[in-house]
């Protein structure tokens, strides 16, 4: 037990690591996570629309994309994009290593988010689309104005899971060999660990991750609740039902 607290809970080492974790690690983890999330949301939404096409040859490439990026370990995708692309002469971000990391994580997230949105879109009753088409709306306006807004609301909880996973997966970009200033939380913690042969800095890094993911989950949950209440303003008329939903 004494070994454990010496190796993992050394407050002096934590104190030493705190500055870099806070200023460099936290900042970069947030940039990488938010950037990848934004890519994943936009890419996932577009891809989900392709996956619900009635034509198989439209769906097929989207299925291949999703199977591929869900199937590969994220760390391998990061290596392929961050090291593979530049070595093939494709350097859209020059030497900004972390930007390749964002792109790689965004590509992975796109696959997961697409599946989440697809589930949401397909859960919307087909009468909703029919009613929109019956008044002369095109397939795409019906999707944009009627089906997608309803589908997205229903999948906020699983979307939260994806965001939380993404924040943690942002640690994987350390494999690209980040220079000082580019390091995210895990890499900062790891450097200190290697320096002192002590894991306490990584434990502190872990606390930072929790400090990001818990408020994030609560934020999305609150949005979820607000949207649900907006949908039925007659909350006071249904106390038992609403109570059950908000347990």
């Amino acid at each position, binding site marked *: 037990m004494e070994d454990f607290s010496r190796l993992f809970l050394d407050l002096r080492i934590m104190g030493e690591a705190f500055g870099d974790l806070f200023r460099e690690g936290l900042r970069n983890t947030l940039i990488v996570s938010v950037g990848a999330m934004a890519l994943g949301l936009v890419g996932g939404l577009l891809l989900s629309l392709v996956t619900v096409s009635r034509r198989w040859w439209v769906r097929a490439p989207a299925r291949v994309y999703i199977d591929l990026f869900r199937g590969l370990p994220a760390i391998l995708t990061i290596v392929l994009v961050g090291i593979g692309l530049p070595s093939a002469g494709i350097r859209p971000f020059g030497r900004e290593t972390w930007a390749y990391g964002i792109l790689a994580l965004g590509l992975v997230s796109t696959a997961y988010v697409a599946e989440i949105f697809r589930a949401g879109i397909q859960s919307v009753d087909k009468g909703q689309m029919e*009613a929109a088409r*019956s008044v002369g*709306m095109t397939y795409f306006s019906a999707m944009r104005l009627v089906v997608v807004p309803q589908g997205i609301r229903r999948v906020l909880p699983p979307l939260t899971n994806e965001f939380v996973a993404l924040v943690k997966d942002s640690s994987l970009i350390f494999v690209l060999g980040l220079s000082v200033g580019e390091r995210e939380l895990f890499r900062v913690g790891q450097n200190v660990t290697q320096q002192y042969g002590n894991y306490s800095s990584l434990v502190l890094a872990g606390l930072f991750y929790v400090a990001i993911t818990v408020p994030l989950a609560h934020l999305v949950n609150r949005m979820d609740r607000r949207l649900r209440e907006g949908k039925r303003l007659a909350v006071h008329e249904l106390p038992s039902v609403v109570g059950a939903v908000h347990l």
Partner: protein
Amino acid sequence: MSPHTDGPRVALRGLHKRFGRLEVLRGIDLEVQIGEVVCVIGPSGSGKSTMLRCVNRLEEPSDGVVEIDGEDITARGANIDAVRSRVGMVFQQFNLWPHMTVARNVALAPQRVKGMTKSAALALARERLAEVGLADKAEARPAQLSGGQQQRVAIARALAMDPEVMLFDEVTSALDPELVKEVLDVMRRLAGQGMTMIVVTHEMGFAREVADRVLFMDAGAIVEQGPPEQLFGSPQTERLKTFLGQVL
């Protein structure tokens, strides 16, 4: 907009619909004149709803032609969105959009399809809602309304596009009995105003009172048709006699 205004408003010619090996429509021929109210009755599974859904191509006919004002809407290259904007439809399950207010439900198509400004579309929506007696519900959400009110909003939504023909697909079948009348009253008034209507229904009283012509369908074909007093008063076929015996 109307190439042959003197011809029938809706014409179905040799209409067939197959789902795999199941033949749901076996050659339907029907002309509906301007201002005519046609009620379609028949046992469930007889193809009534499928026929109705072929009129605005929510169901693609396997064979045959659908004409609106003489225009073949099943032709290759027909602009189905433009056609649908002239054909109103009301569904059994209302299909209101739950994430919008009632007024937005009615205003959406005039705004997005006809290109009206948002304020003009909302003003039109209030007008149409007033016509179905729901002016005071404009800002409510569909879920806050009763089934009968929701169905009246659905009618207002279809009317907001100034359709040339209205299709009603068993619109009172999902309603509690005490809510049926308010919806039928709106439809009755619409018929009185000269709207061309095709009404698939189980409400025999409504068909008898409002229809200019009643069609009896069974097994994917029109078995018998005529004015309501003839069809209900002296049915010619055994199948219609049996059907009326069951429902009346």
